[in-house]
């Protein structure tokens, strides 16, 4: 009797939920093409690969951030945890620890920090902002306590990660970090889309109360996302150590903002529940490409650099919004 399928079913054929991401992707391509027209030597595949190479750590961090933001939370500690990871790696390697033990330890530390913050957020019902801000102070403070100077990494394994190139043919190459990042991104996308944890993340972000009443393990989910974020930050820190071959307490200052910005530019709502990992990848690419354009522009003074970044960001967001929004 209520068979109202007929004329209505056709109305929502193509997944409208993908539109924002598609628009973002299209705009990214447009930006790339525009850059190619404007600058010599820009429109090469290697430029895009370079964006990946130079932003691998940011991407990994942003992946963790995506989980957190999808549940409606926020993690301000990521930048500091990244710095802490570089610092711990550098110090331990200096003391002659084996590389893989260092890697394992650093990842564990990141995950535990995240776990701790997640537990406090959930069990004591404190706003994520303030807890992770304390986490940010803590991690950065630990860095300085370890040492205020920057420490070189000379370990062979790390150096190998840093300096080997994986040739893709046609003169194009990527660093091992990019491969690690790709694995992380794919794994995260799989988790978000094909596992219960992932779906619980979306549900919790959609409405925590409903998720609770539907009998979903909200506590576990919330704690898990901060753990994931902590883990990703530590991994991002390792990638950054590969990239820079140094540990330093002032590394990655403000990276939390970049990560949040990347996630949000990718179309994820800060209120939680909507967004895709692909969007985050695009967000990071957009930020990276803006950087690349700036360096190709090459003649901007310091302040014009900032103003120009702001303008590009504005133009991008505006177009994204105007093209993507066919809501109410």
């Amino acid at each position, binding site marked *: 009797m*209520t068979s109202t399928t007929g004329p209505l079913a056709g109305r929502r054929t193509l997944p409208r939920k993908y539109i924002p991401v598609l628009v973002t992707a299209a705009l990214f391509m447009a930006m790339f093409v525009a850059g190619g027209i404007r600058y010599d030597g820009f429109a090469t595949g290697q430029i895009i690969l370079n964006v990946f190479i130079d932003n691998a750590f940011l991407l990994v961090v942003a992946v963790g951030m995506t989980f957190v933001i999808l549940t409606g939370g926020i993690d301000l500690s990521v930048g500091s945890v990244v710095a802490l990871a570089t610092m711990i790696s550098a110090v331990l390697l200096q003391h002659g620890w084996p590389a893989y033990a260092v890697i394992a330890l650093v990842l564990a530390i990141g995950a535990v920090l995240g776990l701790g913050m997640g537990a406090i957020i959930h069990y004591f019902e404190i706003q994520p902002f303030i807890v992770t801000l304390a986490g940010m102070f803590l991690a950065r403070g630990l860095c300085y306590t370890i040492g205020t100077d920057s420490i070189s990494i000379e370990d062979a394994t790390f150096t190998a990660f840093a300096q080997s190139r994986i040739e893709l043919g046609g003169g194009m190459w990527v660093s091992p970090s990019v491969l690690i990042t790709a694995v992380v991104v794919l794994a995260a996308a799989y988790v978000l889309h*094909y596992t*219960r944890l992932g*779906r619980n993340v979306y549900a919790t972000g959609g*409405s925590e109360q409903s998720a609770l009443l539907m*009998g979903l393990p909200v506590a576990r989910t919330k704690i898990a996302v901060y753990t994931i974020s902590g883990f990703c930050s530590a991994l991002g820190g390792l990638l950054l150590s590969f990239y820079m071959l140094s540990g330093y307490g002032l590394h990655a200052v403000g990276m939390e903002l970049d990560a949040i910005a990347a996630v949000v530019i990718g179309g994820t709502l800060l209120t939680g529940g909507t967004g895709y990992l692909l969007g985050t990848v695009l967000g990071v690419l957009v930020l990276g490409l803006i950087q690349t354009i700036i360096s190709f522009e090459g003649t901007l003074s310091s302040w014009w650099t900032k103003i120009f970044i702001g303008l590009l960001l504005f133009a991008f967001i505006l177009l994204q919004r105007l093209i993507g929004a066919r809501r*109410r």
Partner: protein
Amino acid sequence: MAVPAPILRMNGIGKQFPGVKALDGVDFRLLPGEVHALMGENGAGKSTLIKVLTGVYDIDAGEIELEGRRVAFSSPLAAQQAGISTVYQEVNLCTNLSVAENIFIGREPRRLGRIQWTTMRRRAAEILARLDLYIDVSAPLASYSLAIQQMVAIARAVDVDAKVLILDEPTSSLDAGEVAQLFRVMRRLKDQGIAILFVSHFLDQIYEISDRMTVLRNGKLVGEYLTRELGQVDLIGKMIGRELADLESLEGRPLARQSAPLVEAADLGRAGSVRPFTLTIHEGEVVGLAGLLGSGRTEVARLLFGADHAGSGSVKIGGEPVSLRTPRAAVRRKLAFCSENRRAEGLIPDLTVRENLVLALQAARGWTRPIPRRRQDELADKYIAALNIRPADPDQLIRNLSGGNQQKVLLARWLIMEPRLLILDEPTRGIDVGAKAEIQRLVAELSDGGMAVLFISAELEEVLRLSHKVGVLRDRRLVAELDNDEGLTTDTLTETIASGARS
């Protein structure tokens, strides 16, 4: 008749909220294979009892036994795992997820830990088909009306392999067809020996489906009765603690046709939601809208109020063409709209009852002209008394009120505006019998005083009792406009809805 051992027993349950004793020494039992109705006025403590049972709240006093064993659930998850499946009063689903996911989340079909999306969608469609609902299960739930969301919530609950099924006002926005469908399913489950706890303010439904009922009043147990042994009038007496004034006093409404047209909508429509329609509402007239789930009643109301942009057509108010681009513009023209979806579109949960009550009035006056505190208190006191809002504390946060009482506050928000046209979308959702009669009387009174009302309700009797004229919608098209004269009965109305014939 030998009573089987109860599957669920609650003894001496007490629950205290700051300032309110919601439950006080309540005993309750649930037998296998029965439909047990939990009855009581708005705020009597029905939902609280359910939440206490399923681990949403800790209990302050008393104990719970499930199949003879003492239990204390720490979370709804635990209750679910113990075999209690619940539909809570407000639709508690995640509207950002697809329909299929909402049905299956937490127990998705998986292989090697990988969610089988295709299987899930197929099975979701099957489950909904059993409730006679054929919708695109991969669309986000948010794109469906509240009634459909309610059906989805029910579908989720009945599909779980449960010993106890709890339904807290599942039918508040369903119409007759869906209710019948739901009852079929309930009967089948009951025959399988599942115990069902059912809450509703529709007495007809209670008498149709339930075997036994427990009545609460002010958080205290009144008693447990076999349904067939307790008459309607007695039941009401037990619920409200006194006799109810005559329910049928609204019969025979005089037509107000001769009055001037107030709102004239001509070819008003919006692509993808309602076909262009033409509708005239006169001063002092009550126009009812009838139709099936998702037939477009809500959308008509939203267009008239400017909540959505109309794609075509025009509106005249008092003969003067107007453009209703925003609700604000509509409010300025003295229109008012009480949405069916009180949680998403009505309540400001963090504000108090008083603040929620004066919100629309304050918005209309602008922020520079605050309503004096004294006036606010007067208004609050007046409507708390008139609609019997409980607890009668204007400074209580509205989120702490029971569902029915929240609804009354929202209604009051628009009544104090003294609008020229009041659009009511399911205004009596979740409201108890006493208050419902009160609200109906109020609507009749206001329309007699010259106010026009557009009245949407899933309950056809109510529509018929109040309106002078009924518009019938079908498949998002206004198919008929019927005068409410002697000839119009619920049966003829149902027939028009089903056939779509123009009279």
